[in-house]
């Protein structure tokens, strides 16, 4: 059998035996090349990748989490930065001592106020870290702080897993794509970060800040990257060597966080000491500056006083007052110095200046003389004033007397006016009612019944026809007067005789005539109704006023009755 040992021989043999197949293979190669570039294959591959992702989603996430997690963190970081900028703006609107402290620190260190705020509040400690298989809720690995561990971690892991599933199910039923990440109960907070087939739960004493979350996520990403295949195949066996390794890594991470936290606390304490020193320094500087300023002020005042008064005095500021001390030659200088100081400051002045006693005695003596002169002057003035006062009092008394007189007169005048008014009013009415009467005398508003032949010669008895006329007129008279009863003194019925015969007899006759007429008038109805009777008086005047016509007595006319009105004086 020939030995075939060279490549060319083999190629020749291959071309002889497999010529057709090789040609077919070339044709297939060419077709495959075409397929790689075609859209058909891209569609098939895309579909198969999608299918693969759908079937093995957790595997894919495990593989991608270390890369995608970082990308997501980057975007989340950007979003949080924007949020922090907004918060910074809000903070700038607030006012507090802490805010000023933060602002100063931010300016010095260049760290934003929000980050400082987060740092201030960040005392959060990770108490335990669990890595849990997502589907079963079984605990894959755990690490806990020695003094603050969880009693039954496997049960807690399952329960936490159930709670997480319950909440995520609720979130999904409300059409949200997010997952629960923070669970808080009392003082405990669970921070949950999920990736592929497992998730990590950090049990904390408070809600983690952005930095801590980032730290946990980075640690988790490194774990996922390294242990992804183990996580996918984990069957509940916690004696696997990977579990031990994982627990060790987690323990180291926990301790690192703990020591970092301690360091931060120390830094904070150191910072506190530094702040106290800063404050002391600032306070000291302010105190020294204030003292220097005060000293300069005192020196300036002293110089000014020296320039203006040629007095050397010492000025010091004590308890907010300007204290003056030193010797001065004259008391007047004190006032000058005080007025100079008042132009420079509003502070109260305490004067401890010493003035020579001699100077003071001189001044006191001069002041006494001034006071004595003033007293003398004043005495004269007081005497003059007293005289003037007496004169004025006299004038005042006189004026008061005048006023009293005037008041009394005015009352009188008023009464008079009233009486005149009433008399005028009665006269007007009587004038009107007796306008065409031959018996009415306008001058004294009386009724004089002449030419009526009331009485025969020597008789007191009246004629009936005549007396009726008298009665009618008197009734009209009474109608007017009844309205003025309160002003009437009396209504006088006067009787007269002619001049024949003895005058004494005539007087008696005239009285009888008046009496009889009044008796007649009393009976008249209008007189009774008007209650005028008490005012009706009689008078007999004899032949005292005879009626003279053409130089001769008309004796018939003289025998007559006259009725007249008398008003009260005090109307």
């Amino acid at each position, binding site marked *: 059998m020939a030995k075939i040992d060279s490549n060319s021989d083999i190629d020749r043999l291959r071309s002889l035996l497999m010529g057709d197949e090789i040609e077919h293979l070339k044709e297939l190669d060419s077709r495959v090349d075409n397929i790689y570039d075609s859209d058909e294959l891209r569609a098939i591959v895309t579909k198969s990748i999608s299918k693969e992702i759908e079937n093995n989603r957790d595997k894919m996430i495990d593989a991608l989490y270390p890369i995608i997690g970082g990308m997501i963190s980057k975007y989340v970081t950007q979003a949080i930065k924007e949020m922090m900028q907004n918060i910074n703006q809000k903070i700038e609107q607030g006012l507090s001592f802490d805010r000023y402290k933060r602002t100063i620190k931010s300016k010095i260190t260049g760290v934003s106020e929000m980050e400082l705020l987060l740092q201030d509040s960040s005392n959060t400690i990770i108490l335990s870290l669990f890595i849990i298989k997502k589907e*079963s809720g*079984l605990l894959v690995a755990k690490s806990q702080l020695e003094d603050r561990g969880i009693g*039954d971690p496997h049960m807690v892991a399952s329960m936490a897993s159930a709670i997480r599933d319950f909440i995520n199910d609720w979130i999904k039923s409300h059409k949200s794509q997010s997952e629960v990440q923070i669970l808080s109960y009392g003082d405990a907070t669970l921070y949950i970060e999920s990736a592929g087939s497992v998730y990590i739960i950090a049990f904390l004493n408070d809600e983690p800040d952005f930095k801590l979350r980032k730290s946990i996520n980075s640690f988790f990403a490194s774990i996922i990257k390294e242990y992804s295949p183990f996580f996918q195949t984990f069957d509940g066996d*916690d004696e696997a060597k990977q579990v031990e390794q994982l627990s060790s890594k987690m323990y180291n991470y926990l301790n690192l966080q703990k020591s970092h936290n301690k360091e931060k606390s120390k830094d904070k304490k150191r910072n506190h000491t530094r702040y106290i020193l800063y404050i002391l320094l600032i306070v000291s500087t302010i105190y020294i500056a204030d003292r220097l300023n005060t000293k300069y002020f005192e020196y300036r005042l002293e110089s000014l006083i020296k320039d203006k008064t040629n007095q050397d005095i010492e000025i010091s500021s004590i308890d907010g007052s300007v204290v003056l001390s030193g010797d001065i030659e004259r008391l007047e200088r004190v006032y000058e110095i005080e007025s100079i100081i008042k132009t420079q400051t509003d502070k109260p002045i305490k004067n401890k200046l010493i003035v020579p006693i001699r100077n003071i005695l001189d001044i006191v003596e001069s002041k006494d003389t001034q006071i004595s002169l003033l007293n003398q002057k004043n005495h004269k003035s007081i005497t003059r004033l007293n005289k003037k006062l007496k004169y004025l009092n006299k004038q005042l008394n006189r004026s008061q007397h005048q006023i009293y007189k005037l008041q009394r007169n005015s009352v009188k005048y008023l009464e008079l006016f009233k009486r005149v008014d009433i008399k005028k009013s009665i006269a007007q009415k009587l004038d009107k009612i007796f306008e065409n009467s031959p018996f009415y005398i306008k001058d004294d508003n009386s009724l004089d019944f002449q030419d009526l032949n009331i009485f025969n010669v020597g008789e007191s008895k009246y004629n009936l026809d005549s007396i009726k006329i008298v009665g009618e007129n008197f009734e009209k008279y009474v109608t007017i007067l009844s309205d003025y009863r309160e002003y009437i003194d009396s209504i006088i019925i006067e009787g007269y005789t002619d001049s024949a015969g003895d005058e004494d007899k005539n007087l008696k006759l005239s009285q009888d005539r008046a009496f009889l007429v009044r008796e007649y008038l009393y009976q008249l109805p209008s007189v009774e109704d008007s209650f005028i009777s008490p005012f009706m008086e009689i008078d007999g005047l004899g032949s005292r006023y005879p009626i003279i016509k053409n130089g001769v007595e008309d004796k018939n006319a003289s025998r007559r009755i006259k009725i007249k009105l008398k008003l009260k004086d005090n109307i």
Partner: protein
Amino acid sequence: MIRKKIVILGDFSVGKTSLIRRYVDGSFDDKYLSTIGVKISKKAVDTDSGSCELIIWDIEGNTPTKSIPLTYYKGASGAIFVVDVTRGETIEGLDAHISRFIQINPDAHYIVAYNKADMLDETQKDAFELDSSSFLTSAKIAQNVDSLFSRITQDMMV
């Protein structure tokens, strides 16, 4: 130690929680059952294949007003389906429970507990056709409770 998740499923009031209470070493408060529909308990079991700690998820039966997340079923290595022998409708609903569980965990093991057996007389008990994966149990008189959990553990550990 190996840990396995098992779920206890069945209609409302078939005696799931009573069975577990009879069996377990430690568990969370019952309030979680009414709040989130599940209560976690644990039990260490020694089998021929080795020691195992069961993490038992007592899942509340669906009610008209409350549906239980199917995610609770996920990752379970085994399931115990519980029915009430005195209520026929709970037995009729058994297939639906099993198929729902198998759909999510096709490789998991499961057994059936015909619970409240203390309510049956001997004749009635004999009428049940039991095989290796079904038990007549009673939480009240502790009948077959240990056997039930031992069997499912053994099945899971193989």
